[in-house]
């Protein structure tokens, strides 16, 4: 499609082409304009990107960062429009003193530390199984593993809320005769109930990325290892896994960011969670709560804190994994 479109667009230009090389009588006069045009042309191509980038990416970030430096101030009953007072640390000190927000940060940190390794371990294991020589029906299993990712997160969370709900849980219904009961929504387990949904949804996605990386391991290296008598396990451990380090690090960073941005699943589960999921369960939910209270700058400050923390963690993580690679 793109090729066709380009061909159509450039057709008139091609027709005019013979005039270009500067042999004709017009050439001398148009030289200076041509030079300026040459400088302008790349700029013209750059413009659509620059505008979109500035409007959709830079502007909101700058706007959020700047507005986090102001504190909403109202007075009396607040019936006149609120004013915003410049107070660069006001929202930030409030954020770090806000128990709801700090514990939401701790919660997603704990979530990330446990859930990300479990999920990536599963994804790596499944990718290696798919990649093994004895694997059958690879296409089917690849698709089956990937399928949960294709289901919109909110729909999936709704189905899981049915699985967890004390009234309808088929899991607990099956376990009932054995005298067992899984408290999906108790204070201690609820985070792992959420982690279970996230793992279910994203393992296949990460598996596909790692599997794709496995395809680029040179066949002759694997062949050589086999000739040398290395077992399949040994090949996986010593050749394949080191070869896909980059892909694993990439999926890890994506997953760290995903954990920090946890939102859909807890929000969907909240109404049936008997209060185990609070309105400030994750940092983004906490920022939403600030928006609900009409305090946009405070929400912006929370977002900035979250973004900086995620940035630092991702950066450190990349540095650590890279250092290992170079050593």
């Amino acid at each position, binding site marked *: 499609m793109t090729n066709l479109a380009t061909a159509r667009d450039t057709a008139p230009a091609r027709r005019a082409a013979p005039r270009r090389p500067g042999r004709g009588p017009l050439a001398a006069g148009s030289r200076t304009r041509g030079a300026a045009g040459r400088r302008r042309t790349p700029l013209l191509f750059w413009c659509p990107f620059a505008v979109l980038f500035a409007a959709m990416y830079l502007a909101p970030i700058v706007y959020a960062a700047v507005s986090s430096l102001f504190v909403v101030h109202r*007075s*009396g*009953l607040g019936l006149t*429009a609120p004013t915003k007072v410049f107070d660069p640390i006001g929202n930030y000190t409030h954020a770090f003193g806000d128990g709801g927000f700090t514990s939401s940060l701790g919660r997603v940190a704990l979530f990330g530390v446990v859930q990300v390794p479990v999920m990536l371990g599963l994804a790596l294991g499944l990718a290696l199984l798919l990649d093994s020589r004895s694997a059958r029906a690879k296409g089917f299993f690849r698709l089956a593993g990937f399928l949960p990712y294709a289901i919109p997160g909110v729909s999936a969370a709704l189905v899981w809320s049915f699985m967890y709900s004390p009234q309808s849980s088929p899991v607990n219904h099956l376990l009932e005769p054995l005298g067992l009961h899984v408290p999906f929504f108790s204070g201690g387990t609820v985070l792992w109930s959420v982690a279970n949904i996230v793992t279910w949804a994203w393992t296949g996605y990460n598996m596909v990325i790692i599997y794709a990386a496995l395809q680029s391991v040179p066949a002759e290296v694997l062949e050589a290892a086999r000739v040398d008598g290395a077992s399949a396990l040994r090949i996986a451990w010593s050749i394949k896994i080191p070869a896909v380090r980059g892909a694993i690090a990439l999926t890890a960073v994506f997953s760290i960011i995903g954990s920090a941005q946890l939102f859909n699943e807890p929000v969907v589960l909240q*109404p049936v969670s008997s*209060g185990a999921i609070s309105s400030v369960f994750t940092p983004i939910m906490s920022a939403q*709560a600030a928006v609900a209270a009409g305090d946009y700058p405070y929400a912006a400050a929370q977002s900035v804190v979250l973004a900086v923390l995620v940035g630092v963690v991702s950066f450190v993580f990349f540095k650590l994994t890279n250092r290992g690679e170079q050593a």
Partner: protein
Amino acid sequence: MKKPPLRTAALAGAVTLGLLLAGCSGSGSDSGAGSGGRTTVTFWGWAPGYADAVKAFNRTHTDLRIDYQQVQPGAKGGYQKTLNAVQAGNAPCLAQLGYETLPSFAAQGALQDVAEYADAGKGDFFDASWKSVSVGDAVYGVPVDTGPMALFYNKKVFDSLGLKPPATWAEYKADAKRIHAADPHKYISSPYLDYDYAGLAWQNGAHWFGVDGDSWKVSLASGPNRQVADYWQDLVRTGAISNAPMYDQAWYKGLGDGSIATVVGAVWQAGVIKGGAKDGAGQWAVAPMPRWSAGDERTGNAGGSATAVLKGCESPKAAVEFAHWLSTDRTAYGILVDKAGLYPAAEKLTDLPQLSAADPYFGGQKISDVFAKAAPKVDADWTWGPVMTKTAADLDDGLGKAWAGNGTIADALRTAQDKTVAELKHQGLKVSG
């Protein structure tokens, strides 16, 4: 007046962006709005039927034209859109606004005081409804509908145990125990959260907020609130409350199969029950809300909405004129009753023929009779708070646990009060008491 620096920053950003855009495109064209002789007032709402009512208005009025635009229901994004529009300076004149949200809008400076135009219509509305559109002396719109409460009960369940609908809360508790003892899978009710719970407090005069001069009073943990909280806490303790959350599939199932025997709810709950629990057809009936003591006729309220005038409206007088018409015109309101199931805030409309039909779902009962008696008995001193969405969320965090047996309702109210006071102080609002 000093320009807020943030707006300057935003302006600078916008200018930079504009320059970038201008550099990349040709000249834009300005669109000019042609104006006729009629005043045009824009109105944002979502209730089904509003569009038809507006059409009827435009047909019969020559000097004023209403431009109705449908937005997402408030909690689903409509309120946010409206607030953003006010901040951006391109808001409509009028917006549909739930009573519980109106003070939050007012406290963000998003509403316009129209007392001078609206006060003349005050007498047409129930006192409680009028109170719901005002904060202090300011009036921010015209009440449209109201949510007087009653007791929806599964008559089949009550009859099978030889019980009559409870007239007092003491009887309600006794019935709760009887029902649960007769069948441990049957419960008197589901838990109530945020605005549904507020209706229970409202009945007892257990105000959550108040206005005292130029400061807010926050009283979720007051004595009367404690009384309501302890009452329901006791029902939780005896195991008489189901763990099915309201509006959840499990709740509708319970309403349909008789395992949830009552709903203490507002008039619009009739439509919710009818629509969600089809299996319960013919089994349900409506009785007055149980009283705290015999002879005490106070009733709670849940829900209701107003047509509010937003900050920046250039023709507030015309806007109020239309809003008053919408809430009081018999033809227009007939449409709203038919299409949206609204219950009028205007006292003289409670005899609308659309309201008084006997309902086969409720065993042929004319349920509107119960609500027509309840509406004037709604306590008229209730005030919603200035950060209501946050207060409601904080309250639900605690209530959810309390209904499940972790912590108490009284503590949930106390925590919500503390958090609300902290939030108000953080934003610089004055709090007294």
